């Protein structure tokens, strides 16, 4: 097992730290026990990340809807103000 692979066994790095290249060669050099540990951790991370992404999506959609509604309100207010200005001149 490589030094990095051994380190990986005890302290798997998060996905964002895996920006470069395939880890396949390292995985091939690891023991079944080490791979199992990483596999189980990754599965749990996948589940948690998927849940987190869904939560973010929900909040994002809600905020987008609020922003759209606020824009609509502002547009209507602006139109009313414009109409009021025109009406005042009569």
């Amino acid at each position, binding site marked *: 097992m490589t030094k990095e692979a051994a380190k990986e066994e005890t302290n798997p790095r998060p996905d964002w730290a895996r920006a470069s290249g395939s880890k396949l060669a390292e995985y091939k050099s690891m023991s079944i026990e080490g791979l199992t540990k990483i596999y189980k951790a990754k*599965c749990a991370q996948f589940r948690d990340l998927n849940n987190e992404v869904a939560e973010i999506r929900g909040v994002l959609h809600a905020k987008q809807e609020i922003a759209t509604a606020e824009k609509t309100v502002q547009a209507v207010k602006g139109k009313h103000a414009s109409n009021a200005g025109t009406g005042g001149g009569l």
Partner: protein
Amino acid sequence: MAVHSTALRNAQANAVTTLLDAGSGAAFIQLRTGTSIGAGTLLATITCADPSFGSASTGVITGASFPRSDSSADNSGTIGHYVVLDSDSNTVLSGTSVGAGSGECNMVTLSVTATQVVTINSFTYTIGAGS
């Protein structure tokens, strides 16, 4: 009708395996009577391999290291459906496609006798090309 790309089918099928294996231990399959998912009488529980399924190919995942058995059934009855749970008992997959020599959950026999051996010959799950 929506059409699923092979990449999507494989991603969906692999996600099933990932969720099944997300618990600290191995996933397990409950075999129950009736077709009401999660209800009915628990007849047998069979522990999966860990990882539970192989990698998906054209949307199909195949249970690892089958046949697998429960050496002593909990109750007597006829198997009507299966439930697959992670090791934390979160239900991930369930269905009524159970048969003797057929179905997603391919049994030796659907008839279970308490304290007798219950064996699943093979287990496959398929994400179809369309839904």
